């Protein structure tokens, strides 16, 4: 039998080297980790510095590209409460539109998967809706839904739902045949096949769609504010632009980007929280 422990000396030597290795590589690891943590910020700050220098040294006029300093300046010229009003208006519409489009897209995708007939008839309609510029149907929407949140949410939905439908249907169709056979061999009701096999299998696809949709939801809210609004960041940006307050418009853009990043990250967090298995494993 060879189940003999290694000789003591041999046991110590590698352990020591093992330890020292751990410490050395630990420090390295730590640096690497910190690097990863701060890299985005460092990158962001250098980008800002670059931007500022281009504007200053290149004498770039403000109406083409305002410098970060002028944007910050413009930022503080608007009162905090006004910012909050605009922010909330946009965030509200974007989130509502996003949620409504999830509520529409998932059942729609299921229907499209389950019926070849629906697939062939409804899908083209979806493509048409997706490619219709909102401005062209703005009068229709406003006459039907008024100039309130309802129209804006509808417009956001129209812009947001498509990536979700495409990725959900793709994901559900990609479900391995074996898992479908498992379900068939149980003669389970179709809705359970859908909910317990196809949908979980499609989760990575769905979240890929959600990531695209959430950023489109912001765009949708902004476009909706172009169509009808008294407040909101999109309104604010367009308004500032039309009065040539370009730094102020860019200050609005900064807010918009911040919400986008936050919501985009949130989608990831939700996936990591609810469906940790659906994320690729880190080595």
């Amino acid at each position, binding site marked *: 039998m060879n189940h003999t422990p290694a000789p003591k000396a041999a046991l110590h030597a590698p352990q020591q080297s093992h330890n020292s290795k751990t410490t050395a590589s630990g420090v390295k690891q730590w640096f690497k980790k910190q690097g990863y943590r701060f890299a985005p910020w460092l990158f962001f700050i250098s980008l800002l510095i670059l931007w500022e220098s281009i504007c200053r040294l290149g004498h770039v006029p403000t109406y083409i590209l305002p410098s970060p300093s002028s944007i910050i300046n413009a930022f503080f010229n608007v009162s905090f409460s006004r910012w909050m009003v605009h922010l909330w208006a946009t965030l509200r519409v974007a989130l509502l539109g996003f949620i409504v489009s999830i509520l529409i897209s998932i059942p729609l995708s299921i229907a499209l998967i389950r019926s070849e007939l629906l697939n062939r008839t409804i899908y083209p309609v979806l493509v048409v809706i997706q490619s219709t510029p909102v401005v062209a149907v703005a009068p229709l929407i406003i006459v039907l839904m008024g100039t309130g949140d309802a129209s804006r949410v509808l417009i956001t939905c129209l812009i947001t739902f498509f990536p979700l439908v495409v990725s959900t249907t793709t994901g559900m169709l990609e479900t391995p045949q074996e898992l479908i056979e*498992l379900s068939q*061999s149980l*003669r389970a009701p179709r809705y359970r096949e859908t909910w317990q096999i196809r949908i979980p299998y499609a*989760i990575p696809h769905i979240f890929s769609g959600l990531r695209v949709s959430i950023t489109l939801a912001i765009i949708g809210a902004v476009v909706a504010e172009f169509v009808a609004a008294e407040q909101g960041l999109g309104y604010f940006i367009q308004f500032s632009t039309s009065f040539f307050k370009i730094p102020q418009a860019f200050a609005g853009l900064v807010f918009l980007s911040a919400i986008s990043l936050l919501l985009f990250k949130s989608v990831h967090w939700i996936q990591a929280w609810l*469906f940790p298995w659906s994320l690729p494993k880190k080595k």
Partner: protein
Amino acid sequence: MNVMNAFSTPSIENVAHNDDQATQKETTPNAYVRMEDVGHCYDPTPDGPMAVQHINLDIYRHEFVAVVGPSGCGKSTLLRMVAGLLIPSHGEVSVFNKPVTEPRDDVGIVFQKPNLLPWLTVKKNVLFPLKHKYGHVSLEDKKRADELLTMTGLASFADKMPDELSGGMQQRVGIVRALLLNPDILLMDEPFSALDALTREQIGFDLLDIWRDHPKTVLFITHSISEAVLLADRILVMSKRPGTVLDLIDVNLPRPRTAKDMNSTRFCELTETIRGHIYEPHSRA
């Protein structure tokens, strides 16, 4: 466990009279699963090659039939046709005189690949068919799941994800999943192939116990001749692709069987016969 029960398995008697399948066919109306000149061709073109052909086989209620044959001869295809997952392009499979035209829900399948759901823990994977079929699982089911997991040595892995298991463990999960359903027909496609000799033997005997206590019709694909002899009432020996019936062998060893039976002359005779078929020139090109 009540060892004496095993002899009363209804299949045994039936099988005893069934020496020549071809001539007896018309006189066995109580056949449970019946295959009549079954054949299948995956290729949709008119003259595509057959994967299996001319399979005539009657399996009786609560009989344990093993299938052996060269790789690629159509064993899995046959099993999928019995399950209704595949509709034969020739002939007909029927269960209790009703042709199989769609997936059946009274079968439990152990697939050749484990086919576990990657997003469920081992325990949930095992309970999945019940949940999926009936919408809920009872406490009773959960208890039985625990028992079966313990039996297969997986108790401490109940809360792991499938990708944290070794290949053999995944296969065992697949077996437990099918057994838990307690189906009328149990279809097992090389269920023990990734298991070591001891585990294999143990689970084989466990399977026989379960089969005795909850009689069911079993179609069991294996590459181990001794395993086939040890477990089955009859053994279907298939020829190389396109697979046909080469022989149908009655085992006729008394039950309950133990590891000691493997030393009996009848056992050696049978394994030799089957080995002979497999190593015979006509079984392979």
